[in-house]
Structures are given as structure tokens and as C-alpha cells.
């Protein structure tokens, strides 16, 4: 399936999506507004939603504290922690030395000793320096210690593709963390996701990885009245259907959803194809039921993500297609669209070819529906 994806890649013209890097697609945005228009006029950027989530949880529970590089004085490299130092002081908003293994380990130790640390990685690319602390200690200690010591730590920060920052700053670690027993892994897309999932992560007694996306930070999304409440939580392990449809199911998460929505809009208006889009929200545990129920209706399954193809989230979605009752409902093989199997290049034109876009998604959906040769 990866082979056919590549064919599509090279046939696809390098499109105008490049010019919109870092900005939400206008079409997508208009569509989202329509989707939530019935609620009210509350708007919030993903960054603000994360900030509010942190603020509310710091305020609610004295055990919660935040640490990482530049999180205090500098308000965070991406300003997600803005204003929190002034409000909660240096005991609870802690600037650390540049030592991921050190402060990630410190977070694990503090969690084992009764605090609830929120450990910010400037980007998840840098979490590789602390990977042993997260996987070999954080994820496993509760099990290894016979269930006597919980490790309620949250690791959060931007993940996935960004713009113009190349191989070492632009990659998706969903599959890495999603494969580890003991971890919960969340991937918020819009502002409601950001707030509800981060708050749920902080209150969860297990170690949770919250994979944000840098390019989403500045995007404004509507917030429902319910989501504005300090009691708003989203359930971990539940996906959300962000667009209902009957012809094909797209499973995706995070930034890639923008391109799925763009493709869905195009397919609807140009071809009359109705696409259902599932926002996974939670990578681990994965909401298999929502996917199964959707495919029972649409009989076509396409997974879209920005991670590498091998052993990735898309592979997992394909496996679900084989191992669950989905298999009996499929009218075409499961398709997966992923990032290219190369380290992310810097040059704009090369970078654009490395990640899914709306045109590619539309093309693959049509192929799945036998509407394109």
C-alpha cells in the first residue's frame, strides 16, 4: 500500500498548499466555523486553550507543577505557558537546565513522590534525549513495582511536522509512544481537544504523553459553552467524528485533519462523495469501536497521518481492518497515507512532498471508491 501511495505522491502536482504553510487553509477554516456555528461565538487559539487548561489545573490541584526549558521567565518557547510564572511563582513553574534526561527524570521522580508534574519538551524531537526515563521508568514503574506506586506525570509539547525546520525538528512520534504499554498518548487537534485532553491528562493517574502540534498553536477554533467551563474534560480513549459521511471513512489526528477536511469538502463539491472523518484524539488507548462502527456504514477505510509509514499508526489502522469485523464490511483494501519514508528535508518543495495534503487524500479516497483509475 505504501508503494501505491508513492506513485500518487509523484503524480500529484506540488500544489499551492506550500504557500499556506503555518496558516490554516481558508476553505477548511470556513467549513469548521460552519460546523460549530450553532454553539456560540467563543473563539480560542489552540495555544490559549492549552494555557487555560494548565492554568485551571494548576489552580485546582496544588500538587500540579510545570517544568521544562524556558517555561517560566520566557513563557515557553511557544508561549503556551504565558503568564503562569506570575500567577503561580517559581516553585510551581520551574525553568530547568538544558537537560532533557535530567528534567524528565526529575518529573518521573517527583510523580513517584506525590506531585503531578507537567513536563514540557520544547519539541518532542528533544524527548529522544530522555527516552529511557519516559519508557523504561515512567511507563513501567507502576507495573514493575507491583502496582503500589503510581506515576502521574504528563509529558507535553509540540510534535509532528512543522514548517521549514527539517529532519531533527519535524517528525511525528505517535507510533513510538503509542507502542508502549503503560503510557497513554493523546493528540489534540482543535482548541476543545487541546483543553479537554490536556486537563484529562493532568488528572489521569497514569503517565500521559500529550502530542501537540506547533502549526496548530496559532489556529483559532470555536469553543462550546461546555468547553469554556473549568470542569470540561474529554474522555481518554474516545475518538470524535468531526464530519459525518456515508461513502468512506478517514481516520486521522492532529494537523493532518485539516487536509482531510479540505479533501472532504472538495470531494463533496466536485464529486458528491460524502466522507466521514474520525479525529482519533487518543492514540493509546485507540478507540477501535468508533472506527468499526463508521466503516460498517461506509465500507471504505483510509488512514491519514504525518508519521513514517513503517510500523506506524497507519499500519495499526490497517491491522484493525484485518483483525476486527471491519474486514467483513470492506469493499476495498484499507489505504494508508503517511509521511514519506525519509527524514524531513528542509527545502520547501521537498518538504511539501514529504507530507500528505488535501489533493493526495482526495485522490486516495477516490481510488478506494474505484472512482479513479
Amino acid at each position, binding site marked *: 500500500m505504501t508503494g501505491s501511495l508513492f506513485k500518487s505522491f509523484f503524480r500529484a502536482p506540488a500544489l499551492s498548499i506550500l504557500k499556506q504553510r503555518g496558516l490554516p487553509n481558508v476553505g477548511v477554516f470556513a467549513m469548521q466555523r460552519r460546523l460549530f456555528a450553532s454553539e456560540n461565538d467563543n473563539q480560542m487559539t489552540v495555544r490559549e486553550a492549552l494555557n487555560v487548561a494548565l492554568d485551571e489545573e494548576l489552580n485546582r490541584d496544588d500538587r500540579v507543577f510545570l517544568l521544562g526549558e524556558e517555561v517560566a521567565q520566557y513563557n515557553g518557547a511557544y508561549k503556551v505557558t504565558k503568564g503562569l510564572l506570575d500567577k503561580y511563582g517559581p516553585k510551581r513553574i520551574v525553568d*530547568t537546565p538544558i537537560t532533557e534526561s*535530567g528534567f524528565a*527524570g*526529575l518529573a518521573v521522580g*517527583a510523580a513517584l513522590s506525590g506531585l503531578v508534574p507537567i513536563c514540557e519538551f520544547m519539541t518532542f524531537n528533544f524527548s529522544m534525549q530522555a527516552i529511557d526515563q519516559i519508557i523504561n521508568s515512567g511507563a513501567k514503574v507502576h507495573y514493575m513495582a507491583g502496582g*503500589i506506586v503510581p506515576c502521574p506525570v504528563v509529558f507535553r509539547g509540540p510534535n509532528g511536522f512543522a514548517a521549514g525546520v527539517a529532519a531533527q525538528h519535524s517528525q511525528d512520534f505517535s507510533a513510538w509512544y503509542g507502542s508502549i504499554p503503560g503510557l497513554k498518548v493523546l493528540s489534540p487537534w482543535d482548541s476543545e481537544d487541546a483543553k479537554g485532553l490536556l486537563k484529562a491528562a493532568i488528572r489521569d493517574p497514569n503517565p500521559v504523553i500529550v502530542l501537540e502540534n506547533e502549526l496548530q498553536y496559532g489556529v483559532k477554533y470555536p469553543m462550546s459553552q461546555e468547553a469554556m467551563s473549568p470542569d470540561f474534560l474529554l474522555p481518554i480513549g474516545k475518538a470524535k467524528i468531526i464530519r459525518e459521511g456515508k461513502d468512506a471513512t478517514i481516520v486521522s489526528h492532529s494537523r493532518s485533519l485539516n487536509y482531510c477536511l479540505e479533501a472532504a469538502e472538495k470531494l463533496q463539491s466536485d464529486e458528491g462523495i460524502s466522507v466521514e472523518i474520525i479525529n482519533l484524539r487518543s492514540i493509546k*488507548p485507540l478507540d477501535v469501536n468508533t472506527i468499526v462502527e463508521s466503516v460498517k456504514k461506509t465500507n471504505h477505510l483510509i488512514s491519514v497521518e504525518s508519521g513514517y509509514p513503517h510500523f506506524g499508526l497507519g499500519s495499526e489502522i490497517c491491522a484493525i481492518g484485518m483483525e476486527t469485523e471491519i474486514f467483513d464490511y470492506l469493499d476495498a483494501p484499507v489505504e494508508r497515507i503517511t509521511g514519506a519514508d525519509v527524514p524531513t528535508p528542509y527545502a520547501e518543495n521537498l518538504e511539501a512532498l514529504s507530507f500528505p495534503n488535501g489533493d493526495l487524500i482526495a485522490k486516495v479516497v477516490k481510488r478506494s471508491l474505484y472512482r479513479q483509475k
Partner: protein
Amino acid sequence: MFTLLRNAALCSLWPKIAMSTINRRALTMTTKLLKNTLDEKASYPGATESYFTTEMKFIQSIAPIPTYRVMDLHGKVIDPTQEPQVSKEFAVKIYKDMITLNIMDFILYEAQRQGRISFYMTNYGEEAYIGSAAALDSQDVIYGQYRESGVLLYRGFTLDNFMNQCYSNENDIGKGRQMPIHYGSKELNFQTISSPVATQLPQASGAAYALKRSGKKNCIMCYFGEGAASEGDFHSALNVAATMKCPVIFFCRNNGFAISTPTLEQYKGDGIASRGIGYGIDTIRVDGNDVWAVYNATKAARQLSVEEHRPVLLESMTYRVSHHSTSDDSFAYRSKKEVEYWKQLDNPIVRFRKWLEDKNWWSEHEENSFRTSIRKEVLNAFSKAEKLLKPSITDLFNDVYDHPPQNIIDQRQKLKTLIERYPENYPLKNFKNEGKDL
């Protein structure tokens, strides 16, 4: 001149006895300053205590760090002011724990050799670290590496607890999930052992930060070896502990070997202690085979840590008489003669026994009868543990999370179905509850 003035101002605040010394120092400094106007303070944000000089010199080493000692090799106290004022009961408990550890090690090592347990690590030659356990408060939290069973023993981990863990039986606190010797006890404030060396160090800093925030008058004790000090985690842990002022004692058991790698190949420079100074951490090196040196230094370190929220590095110099583990034969890389030398001439147990005997707190008779009785107790616990059932099969799936998510429930259900369908392939007689609780 600025320096001189400041010193003079300080003098007026200081007690009179100290004044003359300080004045002399101030005078010497004036002379120096007059000679060389460059000899002034260099105030950079990255080095606040430096001064300018015209002498171009690379610094390779500072004076060797001394090794603090209370007793000589014969258990004689060198400086009476350093002898700790402790009761007979207190001292004898430490000694008895050293002997118990020694005997337990011997029996479990042999058990591994006979194939009855899969793995073991002995503490031979390093038993004096129990002195550090004796200097702590029972609420101080331990982050061990793996060769610190004696600390648990001192805190009251029973012989049954040890044996149950090594046998992974139904009474193992860890529910049969960890290799032998990876002990842990919430009750005794001993964090479960983590195999990858040095990962416990940053965690200890974090636990110390949590302790400090809680306002408790306690500290974290973190043990590790000199080999672990080559890991990045050691450096990051010391750095964050120093910058975040965490009440943690980093206790380095410098026993000469990291598995087969001798210290000569592990590092250059003056041991591990010199690094503490680099991180701005209060540092001391002690004779690690001298129980009282270890005890005194730990007690003082604890004071600094608890009262002033300062991390401390304590380098305890010893010699690993043991093989690294049961997976190692150390005579492939060191001579028996060398090991014999340490066993005979610098044995922490012998040294401490001599001290006790000089006090008339211990005798040949007590030695023999204690050894006989404790050996019997260890063997009893050993055979009891061997006969117990294995942990319940549900423990395979429990505790991955606080509540099992669907993927865990599905796995458990699948196993249950398989067991019901093919019971002959899943003999569960030796499991607690025989699989009925799955």
C-alpha cells in the same frame, strides 16, 4: 580596592576571634592588588567568582580530594573526636545486619548456581554501606541502584520479603514482575529498583524536589556506582539537583569495577568526588569500608540536605569483592590474589568487629551463635519461599494502568478463552488461584 573595602566591612560584623585572621588576609590582598591591577574580580554572568590574571595556565587537576576515615584497618579510632556516640544496641544492630547480608548473599548466590533462581548479586566487601542506612531517618526515601539490599535489611525488610522476591512467588510484593534483587517497598520508603543504571539519579532529584515542596524534614538517598557516573543521567541529575536546590544525597559506591571495566578505564580525573565540586555541590570522599566514616559523613550530609536544601555528593571508596553478578566471572579480568588482599586486609566486617570487641560489645561466642542462628533463619525463609505458589496469572495484566483499558481487557479475555479451550496446555496448578480469577 573594592575587595579590600568589602572585606573590611565584613570584619565589623564578624566575631572578634575571627577578625585578626581576616585582617591579615585583607592586608595580603592589598599588597597583591597593588602589584597587579589586573588582579581584580572578573564579573561575568557565567562565572561570578573569577578574577583576571596575566598568567596563562591550563588547569589539569587540583589537589587530590582526601578520604575521610574514623577507624584504621584494625578498627582503632584514629581521632577520638570523630568516634560517634552511639549505644551498644545501635552498633550491634548494624553489625548483625552486615553479617546477615553476608550469609543471605552466600545462600542465594549458591541457589542461583544450583539453578533455583535465575539471577543474583552479592554485596561482598561493601557491607559497610549499611552505615549510611543507619544515619538516615526511616522517612528518608531510598533510590537504589541494585547492590543495596543491606539498606532494606536495616529498615526491616524481612528475610521472607527478600526470598519471596527472588523466587517471584505469590507473596512477592512486586507480583513476580521483576528479576531477582529488584526489591522495592513502599512501607519502607524504598523505591523499586530500576535496572538501567543511573536512571534513578534524576528521579532522586525529582523526588527530593517533591519532598522539599511538601515541607517534610527529610531527604532522598540515591545510591549508584562509579560506572553509572559515566552516564549522562548522572550529570543531568547533579546539575538539576544543584540548580533546583533539591535535598538529595548522591551516594557513590566507588568499588573499582563496573562489571569488568576498572576505574582506570572508566574515567580520568580524581574519582567521582571531583565532579561534585564542578556542579557546585557539597562533596566528601570517605573510606567506604569504615562503617563509622560512612555513618558520620552520611549524617552530616543529611543535615546539609534537610536543613539547607542542598544536594550532597558522597563518594564511598571500597572494593567489590563480589563478581558483578551471577552472570559474571571476575577472575577473567582480575587476579584472585588482588581479591584476597581486600578480603583479608580491608574487610569492613572484620574491621567493625574489632571495634565492637574493643568495646566489649561483641565476642567470639556471640559471633558463632549469631552466625549459626541467622544461617538457620535464612535457610528457613529460603525453603519456605521455594514452596510457595507462583503469582496469580491475572497479575500478568494488572497494573499496566490504574484501570485496564480495552486493549488490556481484550488480551486477558483472549487468554481466558484459550485456557478454557486447551486446559492441558496451560497447567495452572502452580499459580495462585489456579487461573480462576482471570
